[in-house]
């Protein structure tokens, strides 16, 4: 089955880069740490590509489906004799695909950052954290068991905290980082409890046993325990909550818009391509279990969360002024697509289309969303502001960025020959076959997506010419090249890679064909979206204001992200701080502490009470002497039964 042991180097290099830049970065000249980081990720990318080539091409199909290969598998810690926590590298279609995606996007971001971050005081620190993030994401991707995934899951959370809070002297960045970490940590709580339930009821963490037909989950049918779900159902939905948190799904999405406080390359890497798809990858990894347990009811939860998130995010995206926030909500919407697609997918053959479509969309989305973010980055770099209102007519000044941005917008809107069309179309097909309502929602979202993407495109590059105090210039080559590479890929990947051949739930080959009957309407709504955006934003018109006022109050709500931040603020600060922490602090200070001091105080007052007894008068001593003696005497006599007081 081929020797994959070299894959360990994909990890050792970034770790080495992290240690070197982290510990000695401040001592070396800034550029050096940039080169070290980029070099290590380049080699890692090459190794990942070699792994993909070797796995998909050389190893290919064994008995009709692609095998699972363990490059490494050692026991890292043993909880009990049977239950062990091992570390290892698992090679299978989706993990190799993710390896390629993560290393590639990370490579692009590294190259881009050399330009973007030039002159920044924390330059070495940025590259150190980037390497740390890459390692943890790669670790998460190749995890052989769910506990190893949780191990790297937390590391991903921390590195995103460090990167979001990179400009740590800005209080808003610090708050955003803290919010991101705590919300994801809250979701990880669900994930951890899910794992712990599995640890007892399934008796193992290993993915292969969890998803195998005769494994503990799928073999016996466990009795319903809670709301109709069996214990495994509960565990899997809790694990999904963990994934939803990391992928900023509907209720747990509030940290994603604020995460834009971090440098743009960070958003490109983390909040576009890698971290946010971790949830999707988790569900994909456990897909057979999700499909099998309790008849796949948990998948409905997954699907509907995806649908709501994508619609909700799309609506808000239309109203945002900060271009990075628009892209953030667009990411949330696209991930909603992927979750939905997984939710509607079956297992065998054609029914597995949803799974394949979701993975394909993940693959393509990584490309064009990274491109969008990097493009936005170079715009912000040139204009030094995030707000669309400060931009306009940049096409003349930034040709490359403008064209690459256009290609990405076309891709995301699902226009044919661009990659977005192929992946999104298959999702719509899968949704259509499974549940018409979901298809309808996603159909509308496709239109809205096209609209808001072209809204910012026209808003930035066309629209009214603004006077700039110093003329914006095209970003340097080191930033432009990644844009071009990504743009090229976005155009090619869609039709060049027969994704069905590589990634399927049952790992058999599947040659799908474009379902034109559904493709044409989706392209039509995309075009419609673009057209409306063209009218609104190509030239400076008052049309957008009139329409938004027409929507009246609802526009304001959407603009303020439906006040979810305020709700969370209330819940976190009022409830948790004032509602729980304050009473506990008070309780501790007064009741528990009060009791201890009370004991001391009581002995003190009691001793002052007795003061009078020692009056200094001999006569009283004599009295106490005799009285004391008589009391003892009568007590003893009574005890011995010589006298009783019944007369």
């Amino acid at each position, binding site marked *: 089955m081929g020797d994959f042991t070299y894959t360990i180097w994909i990890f050792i290099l970034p770790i080495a880069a992290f240690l070197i830049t982290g510990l000695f970065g401040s001592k070396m000249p800034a550029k050096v740490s940039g080169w070290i980081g980029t070099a290590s990720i380049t080699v890692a990318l090459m190794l990942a590509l070699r792994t993909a080539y070797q796995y998909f091409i050389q190893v290919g199909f064994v008995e009709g489906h692609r095998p699972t290969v363990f490059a490494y598998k050692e026991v890292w810690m043993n909880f009990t004799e049977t239950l062990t926590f091992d570390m290892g590298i698992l090679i299978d279609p989706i993990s190799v695909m993710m390896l390629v995606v993560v290393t590639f996007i990370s490579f692009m971001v590294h190259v881009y950052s050399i330009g973007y971050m030039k002159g920044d005081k924390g330059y070495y620190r940025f590259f150190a954290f980037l390497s740390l993030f890459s390692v943890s994401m790669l670790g998460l991707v190749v995890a052989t068991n769910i506990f190893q995934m949780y191990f790297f899951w937390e590391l991903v959370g921390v590195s995103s905290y460090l990167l979001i809070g990179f400009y740590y002297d800005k209080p808003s960045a610090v708050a955003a980082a803290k919010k991101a970490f705590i919300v994801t940590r809250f979701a990880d709580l669900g994930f951890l409890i899910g794992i712990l339930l599995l640890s007892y009821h399934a008796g193992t963490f290993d993915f292969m046993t969890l998803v195998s037909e005769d494994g503990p989950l799928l073999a016996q049918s466990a009795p319903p325990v809670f709301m109709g779900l069996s214990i495994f159902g509960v565990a899997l939905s809790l694990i999904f909550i963990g994934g939803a948190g990391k992928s900023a799904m509907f209720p747990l999405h509030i940290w994603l818009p604020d995460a834009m406080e971090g440098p743009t390359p960070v958003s490109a890497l983390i909040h576009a391509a890698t971290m946010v798809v971790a949830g999707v990858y988790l569900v994909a990894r456990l897909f057979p279990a999700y499909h099998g347990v309790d008849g796949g009811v948990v998948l409905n939860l997954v699907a509907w969360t995806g649908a709501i998130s994508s619609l909700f995010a799309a609506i808000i995206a239309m109203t945002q002024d900060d271009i990075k926030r628009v892209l953030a909500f667009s990411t949330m919407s696209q991930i909603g697509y992927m979750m939905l697609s997984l939710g509607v997918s079956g297992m065998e053959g054609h029914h597995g289309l949803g799974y394949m479509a979701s993975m394909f969309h993940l693959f393509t989305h990584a490309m064009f969303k990274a491109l969008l973010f990097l493009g936005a980055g170079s715009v912000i770099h040139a204009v030094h502001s995030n707000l669309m209102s400060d931009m306009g007519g940049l096409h003349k000044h930034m040709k490359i960025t403008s064209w690459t941005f256009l290609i990405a917008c076309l891709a995301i809107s699902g226009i044919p020959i661009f990659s977005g069309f192929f992946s999104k179309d298959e999702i719509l097909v899968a949704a259509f076959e499974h549940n018409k309502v979901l298809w309808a929602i996603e159909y509308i979202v496709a239109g809205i997506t096209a609209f808001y993407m072209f809204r910012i495109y026209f808003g930035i590059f066309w629209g009214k010419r603004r006077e700039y105090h110093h003329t914006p210039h095209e970003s340097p080559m080191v930033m432009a090249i990644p844009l071009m590479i990504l743009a090229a890929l976005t155009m090619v990947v869609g039709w060049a890679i027969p994704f069905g051949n590589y990634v399927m739930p049952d790992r058999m080959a599947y040659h799908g064909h474009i379902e034109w009957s559904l493709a044409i309407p989706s392209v039509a709504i995309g075009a419609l979206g673009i057209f409306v955006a063209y009218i609104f934003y190509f030239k400076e018109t008052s049309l957008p204001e009139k329409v938004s006022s027409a929507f009246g109050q609802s526009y304001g709500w959407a603009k303020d992200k439906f006040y979810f931040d305020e709700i969370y603020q209330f819940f976190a600060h009022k409830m948790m701080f004032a509602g729980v922490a304050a009473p506990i602090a008070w309780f501790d200070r007064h009741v528990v502490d009060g009791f201890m001091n009370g004991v001391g105080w009581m002995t003190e007052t009691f001793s002052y009470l007795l*003061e009078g007894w*020692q*009056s*200094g*008068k*001999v*006569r009283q001593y*004599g009295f106490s002497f*005799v009285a004391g003696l008589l009391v003892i005497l009568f007590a003893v006599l009574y005890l011995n039964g010589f006298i009783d007081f019944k007369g």
Partner: protein
Amino acid sequence: MIEGITVYDVLAVSTIIFFIGIFGFVTRKNLISLLISTELMLNAVALNFVIFNKFLYPGQIQGYVFSLFLIAVAAAEVALAIAIIISLYRMDNSVDADDMDTLKG
């Protein structure tokens, strides 16, 4: 012994004397009267010994010997107590038991 008088009657007398002594110690104000009450108690006890020896154990003399020693010791004690009371009086020229309560608390 006089007929008709049992050990209990005489014993009652000596116990009454004893408790008079105690009562005296508790109620009287003057130091000397306190001393007198202690002496009263000691003598009542000496009486007790003699009574028991006479009435219950005529054959032996332990009770009598004991009361003799007791009287001797009581005398010594009174002498000492008077000496201290006088020295107190010389310094404080008052013999009232209640204003001797500087040491208290």
